């Protein structure tokens, strides 16, 4: 329905405007309807301005900036209508060290309402998760889950939760 779309759009827009500057440590971003008169057909434009830079078309942004902008928008939608789980497959691949840390921090703030599954090749991300499953192929072509490591701080959180029951 028109009204539901408009309400959802505005809610997501508010969350996006709040989340982008957190992930970018500054700057601003928002969503804009290409055709505000027509809630049934309008498209959605993304306006994004990293800190200190001029607002220009989103295509000119760098690979890492685009990924982080996309994550801000996806997490904004998550905050409006959470899904029980969120799977992010190598989303951190284009990010530099500082942005990998910010991405993982943002994931952590979203865990109050959803479970996250992160697939990664990046060590910093591996240090940020609660449990690590290692997948390998000791026999070529046949997958095997070979190791499970629980992060210390996660272990402590679980113990605290268990003893509190």
């Amino acid at each position, binding site marked *: 329905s028109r009204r539901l779309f408009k309400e959802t759009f505005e809610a997501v827009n508010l969350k996006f405007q709040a989340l982008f500057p957190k992930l970018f440590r500054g700057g601003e971003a928002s969503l804009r309807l290409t055709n505000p008169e027509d809630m049934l057909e309008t*498209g959605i434009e993304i306006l994004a301005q990293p800190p200190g830079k001029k607002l220009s078309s989103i295509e000119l942004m760098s690979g890492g900036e685009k990924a982080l902008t996309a994550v801000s928008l996806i997490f904004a939608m*998550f905050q409006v209508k959470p899904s*029980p789980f969120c799977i992010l497959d190598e989303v951190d691949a284009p990010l530099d060290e500082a942005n990998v840390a910010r991405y993982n921090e943002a994931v952590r703030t979203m865990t109050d309402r959803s479970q996250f599954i992160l697939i990664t090749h990046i060590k910093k991300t591996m240090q940020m*998760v609660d449990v*690590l499953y290692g997948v*390998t192929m000791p*026999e070529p072509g046949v997958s095997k*889950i070979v190791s499970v490591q629980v992060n210390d701080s996660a272990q402590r959180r679980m113990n605290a939760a268990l003893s509190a029951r």
Partner: protein
Amino acid sequence: VKIKRLEIGGFKSFVERTVIQFDHDVTGIVGPNGCGKSNIVDAIRWCMGEQSARHLRGRAMSDVIFSGSDTRPGHDFAEVTIVFDTADGDVPPAYSSFPEIAVTRRLHRNGDSEYLINKTQVRLQDVTDLFLGTGAGTKAYSIIEQGKVGLIVSAKPEERRLLIEEAA
């Protein structure tokens, strides 16, 4: 709902029955290239009712059945089960009396295919209804596939509205 665990058997490179527990807030999956990490994501999508083989990197749906390796023959069927924990109560009424909801999808080499909820055979429609009811649905923004995060930025404005529609 929360995902409790995933059980994969005969699906893509997971020919051996594999159980993955999801007890934590943030789970990391790591390993060398080609060892099966994204296949786990495909297994979850497939179990949730994905109908397009292309969205699972295949040409035909039978591509999800283990096709063999240097040392093993192909498998006869693929099966994936997602087990949900209903403790936090966000459950469709039909299943509110169960402590767990197990959704299973099975595909045989000969094309026969089954869907089960808590071991009872159901239709695909029941599975998609259940997922929609729990809020997992096939939300386009709850599974970000490898290499695809940039698409939301390069998408046409009309394509982006579909994401808002999903959230609505």
